[in-house]
């Protein structure tokens, strides 16, 4: 479309009668942050792959007998020690003659339960501390942030080491989960606090107060729902971290008892026969890595879906 604008006064051909201002365009389907995020995730194959892996692992944790009939602990015969794959024992035998496949399957239960409980503890504490500190500010923020800093300055695995060393008599899933979650909440709290601070500035929070809603009511109804998105990402990634933490602690010898089946324990015990029979170490490692990978991929996908800036980074 050209027009000679070097002429004194140029006017473009007028198309139709009135010039409409600010026309409302209604899209096919309603869209908000969560709907858009779901539509985005649904389309990505990585999402489905991760979900499948997670579901398989969860099934293994809840009903191990679905995957293997071989008892993982009671049928170990030293004569089979370090043996290769045989009929009914697809992955071979450990140093003590136990079936690697069975132990790997049963190991899922420990890892998942510790991971889940530790994450729930950490996320709940983190959410409460972070939200209160971010929303109310002032001395409460100062106090809670200081407490958070103190817990933050002890790397949570080391803290769990201390706790488990001291509470050696109470080596069970709950103690371990508390040891991990009870210290890991500090980083969750920081993330929640930052997001709550950001949301708190928004005009709709001020509008809610001007309408007559109480401060606490505004926190629950408006601030927290809008601050949840990063919490979701952090929780998913925390789950992965907690599973790794359990494995690391078991590897160090301060996880659950050495006769408990856990991937970390298996890897630790397989260390001594590494040169002779590496498979006893490799298979639980693969199981551990794939599980953690699935959760981390999910966490990243959720983050990409919820954060428009992250989408720009893809």
């Amino acid at each position, binding site marked *: *479309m*050209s*027009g*000679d*604008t*070097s002429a*004194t*006064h*140029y*006017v*473009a051909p*007028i198309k139709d009668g*009135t*010039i409409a*201002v*600010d026309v*409302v365009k*209604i*899209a096919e389907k*309603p*869209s*908000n*942050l*969560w709907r858009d995020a779901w539509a985005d995730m649904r389309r990505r194959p990585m999402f489905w792959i991760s979900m499948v892996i997670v579901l398989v692992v969860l099934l293994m944790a809840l009903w191990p007998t679905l995957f293997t009939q071989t008892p993982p602990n009671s049928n170990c015969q030293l004569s089979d020690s370090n043996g290769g794959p045989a009929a009914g024992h697809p992955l071979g035998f450990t140093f003590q003659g136990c079936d690697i496949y069975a132990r790997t399957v049963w190991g899922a239960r420990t890892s998942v339960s510790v991971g889940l409980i530790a994450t729930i503890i950490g996320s709940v504490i983190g959410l409460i501390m972070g939200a209160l500190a971010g929303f109310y500010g002032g001395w409460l923020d100062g106090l809670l942030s200081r407490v958070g800093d103190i817990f933050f300055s002890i790397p949570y695995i080391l803290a769990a080491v201390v706790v488990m060393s001291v509470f050696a008599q109470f080596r069970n899933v709950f103690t371990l989960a508390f040891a991990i979650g009870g210290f890991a909440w500090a980083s969750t709290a920081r993330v929640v606090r930052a997001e709550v601070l950001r949301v708190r*500035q*928004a*005009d*709709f929070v*001020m*509008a*809610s*107060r*001007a*309408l*007559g*809603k109480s401060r606490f009511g505004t926190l629950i109804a*408006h601030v927290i*729902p*809008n601050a949840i998105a990063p919490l979701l990402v952090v929780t998913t990634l925390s789950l992965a971290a907690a599973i790794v933490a359990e494995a690391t602690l078991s590897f160090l010898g301060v996880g659950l008892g050495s006769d408990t089946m856990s991937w970390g324990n298996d890897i630790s015990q397989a260390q001594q026969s590494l040169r002779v029979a590496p498979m006893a170490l490799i298979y639980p490692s693969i199981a551990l890595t794939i599980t953690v990978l699935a959760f981390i991929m999910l966490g990243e996908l959720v983050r990409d879906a919820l954060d428009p800036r992250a989408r720009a980074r893809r």
Partner: protein
Amino acid sequence: MSASTDTPLLRIRDLKVAFDTQKGSREVLHGINLELYPGETLAIVGESGSGKSTTASAIVNLLPGTGHVTAGSITLDGQELTGLTEGQMEKIRGREIGYVPQDPMSNLNPVWSIGFQVKEAIRANGLATGRKEIEARAVEVLQQAGLADASKRLHQYPHQFSGGMRQRALIGIGLAADPKLLIADEPTSALDVTVQRVILDHLASLTKEKGTSVLLITHDLGLAAERAEKIIVMQNGEIVEAGPSREILENPLHPYTKKLVAAAPSIASQRIQAVHERQGIETSEDIAGIPPTVSVRDLTKDYKIRQGQFRSIPFRAVDAVSFDIPKGKTLALVGESGSGKSTVAKMVLKLEDVTSGSIAIDGVDISSLSGRETLALRRRMQPVFQDPYGSMDPLRNIGNTISEPLDIHGVGDKGSRQERVLELLDQVSLPRELATRYPNELSGGQRQRVAIARALALKPDIVVLDEAVSALDVLVQDQILKLLAELQSELDLTYLFITHDLAVVRVAADLVCVMEKGKLVEQGTVDEIFANPQQEYTERLLQAIPGVSIALGGRSA
């Protein structure tokens, strides 16, 4: 500059620009033609999305993201610019074409000193060599741009400068190499109004002196007419009208241009003032008979600003402000940033505590109210805020947002609330289907209409509008102001209107209070203030309205 005035310095022919999206290529400029002659200033005017900034970026090949030129030609002094390699373009940028961007804060790298960023421009364009020479030239550049203490300023960082000073530095950088063409993309939109005028005056004198051609991008038609000899009006990636500034303002031919001329506050304000002066000015005596709905006396607000770890100094944001708003009228609180106007609004809304002074609504002092009485008060007084993108909970649909006040105050049952929501949507001219939609599906103007609907839900008497139209495009702003005027007369509403734009005050308000640094400088009816400002600050604000020097009748320089 020796080029004859017959050949254009910059010539754009049939320029088309497109962006690559997931759904294919999307054309945003559909064939632009323009000519800029040496020493001339040409303004491109348009609302957001018109393509004015895209055109400017295309000239220096700095289109954002996936933008690229798909057709057409851009020639500078006979040299074709489209199709140049990056290396060739680098030589043109800075040396032949200077660029002044819009937002002075985000356009300077915060970790390097101002001097560093000026010097690298000088070095890159071969203006000086050797440390001493470059340093001297840098000082010269900043001095020319109007910065005092230039040699000391070189070592300072962007965050230590004020907004106006940063913009001067950017202008200095843009003109450092004496380019033939300077592209100024909304160079003063992010600055206070009085600072705007000073900087634009300075820019005009610099470019006159050097004979630089200027391509000025702006959304303000008044500013364009004042600063440029020729205006091009763009809409939706096309040029709709072009010609000498005077011509466009006095005789717009295209319907879009006509709408712009009618709606642009800076121009409209001149016209309205002219009309009112002819008809007779409304003075304070005329209004004195109406009972005040909002009565503010000696309102003061002190904040404590933390200095270092332990000390805190008191900061007086609002200093003994008093005014009355008669029932059914609109009072505008106008001032630049830091004047305290928003703080006054928040105190009236009881969102901030009062340090001293009183606020009375219909004669009742609001600080003496109990919790339940305050809740009842809130039914009568509602806000509309500035940021259309932040004033609504993005997770609630429109219907829930509008009905929230009804929920909080327990008005009616579910059925009647739904009815009221639909009624309100009608009142603000929005389709009823929007009740189940979410804020992110709407434009800025549409969201403000939802905010207005929410404010009206409880049938209040008073509406506090805190910069409610400042973030909107000109035509949308005009629409919203008309809607507000309609609603005011229909529902007998009293408005407290906060704004930094004196031109909008002329268009929208009956009374005005001018604030500066927390103090009330002058107040009166809008007619009075515009015709006879008493205080120097008021006079400066009036002079700063773009286009004021164009005699359209009424105020002239």
